[in-house]
């Protein structure tokens, strides 16, 4: 009986001592956490895509609370979420412009053809490094899907040899644009009306030889556009999205149908 009492006392005393030590340590090493950080973090999407330039959503929330980043730093957040974050931080909501990725190439297997048999690592960057021009067109999408791998939102897929963006899922974080070795992916405002889906800077006849969906630099679109929104530079049409009114006259006239509605 005495043994049990002694054991209980010893364990009880040790428990009390350790408890006291924990309380003391908790006080001494207390790290102040801004409660706003957790609230901001809840408004962020949580995919840790890195589109904001921070290490992930936690880091982005911390940066916003510390004032190191703007409240609309997250390119993925909706306007609603930004307003919530602004309310938490007590600042005016900045207007966010929703963006999306756009692949400036339509060169599927049907439109262009494979020039040489690339065998090696299934990655666009590796293919570019090998120096082999895989497709007849030197400028187009390689279709090995480096962008698909980079996308955290399952918004990009390679269909018949060329990458296609799913605008519903795309959040405009820009990770795909950063990995594309051909610089084909452009981040554009999601309310853009028309865009040129080709990146070839080769001259018209050469483009015609290698791809059925290549910009020939023929300037028919320039002549059609009443808003003067289209310019042809370096054998490639460019649309000034600010000026474009979305009349779609250029799309009708384009012989290769490279101007697409979004």
């Amino acid at each position, binding site marked *: 009986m005495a043994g049990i009492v002694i054991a209980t006392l010893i364990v009880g005393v040790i428990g009390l001592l350790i408890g006291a030590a924990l309380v003391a340590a908790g006080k001494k090493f207390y790290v102040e956490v801004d409660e706003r950080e957790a609230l901001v973090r809840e408004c962020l999407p949580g995919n840790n895509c890195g589109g904001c330039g921070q290490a992930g959503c936690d880091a982005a929330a911390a940066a916003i609370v510390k004032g190191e980043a703007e409240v609309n730093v997250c390119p993925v957040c909706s306007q609603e979420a930004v307003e919530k974050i602004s309310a938490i931080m007590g600042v005016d909501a900045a207007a966010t412009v929703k963006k999306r990725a756009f692949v400036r190439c339509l060169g599927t297997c049907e439109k262009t053809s494979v020039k040489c048999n690339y*065998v*090696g690592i299934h990655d666009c960057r*590796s293919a570019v490094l*090998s120096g*082999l021009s895989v497709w007849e067109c030197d400028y187009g999408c390689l279709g090995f899907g480096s962008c698909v791998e980079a996308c955290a939102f399952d918004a990009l897929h390679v269909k018949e040899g060329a990458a296609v963006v799913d605008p519903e899922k795309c959040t405009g974080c820009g990770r795909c644009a950063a990995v594309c070795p051909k610089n084909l992916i452009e981040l554009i405002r999601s309310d853009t009306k028309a865009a040129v889906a080709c990146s070839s800077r080769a001259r018209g006849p050469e483009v015609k030889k290698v791809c059925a969906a290549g910009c020939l630099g023929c300037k028919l679109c320039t002549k059609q556009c009443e808003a003067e929104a289209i310019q042809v530079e370096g054998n490639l049409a460019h649309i000034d999205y600010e000026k474009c009114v979305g009349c779609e006259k250029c799309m009708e006239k384009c012989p290769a149908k490279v101007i697409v509605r979004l």
Partner: protein
Amino acid sequence: MLRKTFQGGVHPADGKEFARNVPYRTYLPKGDLVFPLNQHIGKPARPVVQKGDLVLAGQLLAEADGFVSANIVSSCSGKVKALENRKTVAGLSVPCIVVENDSSYTLADGVGAETDAANLTGQEILDKIKAAGIIGLGGAGFPTHVKLAPKNPQEIEYVIANGAECEPYITCDDQLMRTKGSEIVEGLKIMLRLFPNAEGVILIEENKPEAIKAMEQACVGQERVRVQAVQTKYPQGGERSIISVVAGKHLKLGMLPADAGCVVDNVATVHAIYRAVCKSEPVMERGFTVSGDGVKSPCNLMVRIGTSFSEVLLEAGGIPEGVKAKKLLCGGPMMGIALASLDVPICKNNNALTVLCTDPVEEAQKAQTACLRCGRCNQVCPLGLTPQMMAVAAEKKNYERYEKKLYGLECIACGSCTYICPAKRPLMQLFKQAKAEIMAAKRK
């Protein structure tokens, strides 16, 4: 007696039997010649001719722009047709000078003038080398006049003419040593003038007995010059492998050959130095091997710089009828670059065209499995790196570990690990990509 060698390395089938006994013949191109402005490592040369200018063989087309850069001379006479972007071996469109060949090969003034090297000072020798546009003809393409002017010429102990030619199929250096032995020794002696305390070593793998004999004969009665035969093992021709054999020193991280008291140049470069200094001939032609089981008559050719690969393949009889060539390589099968098109020009540092009827990469890809952790890649790496761990880091894009912990940037891309890998992993390609991405991030 076993000869000296370096640590690691592999023994691939050497394929030298195709062309090793075919003596050089000179091939004069018929079509236009294309001269890319960035044949060397460093800044591209600056053109000094304009469209429509008439040029002669040996005339300067573009001059070195900056410290690490090299001159480019015309290798034929004719009219400058265009200054435009053309595709090169590496698959990129780069600025090139295109010369319409008039097929007369009229030499420019002063080319071929005999000079006695004994009367020249060290600086005059370097100036002549620079004017001739000599770069590392073995493949690296580093401007030779820069390499031969290290900070401490007194401390150089060995000047090494690299005749290892360890890359399978290629035999142009072998033939050069057999036929131009005395000129190579003269070239080496000119280099030794720049390095008063150095010994000249001609390093040859023992699978080239005729070349060893020819060079030994050429060295008879010559001071400060000797031939060293070494074991046949790939990559014996790598700079570090050579230095470890000749000087017994292992280059540490970031060390240059000159820091270990060595200057290493390919025998073709040494021969070009002889021609530039003694004959005032700039780099207009080079030895070139066309070989492989997809070539009708494999051969060694003296080709003009700027000749198209397709012309050279035709000169070698083309691809025999009924044979389907599956792989075209600029260089050999270990380190060569696969070509998508033969309409690219031969640069100063391209030494071979290999045509293969099988594609080993395709077959390897079919048989690829996960890493077996057998560690053979670690054993064969001539630099003592750990390719197995580097591959894991590269695949996970853990570039910090790749660079800082595994010293992956030291990889010379010799391909020994990929050759030996029983799981057929594409190791070298992973390393090349990792290196390219790390270097790109550093430039930002």
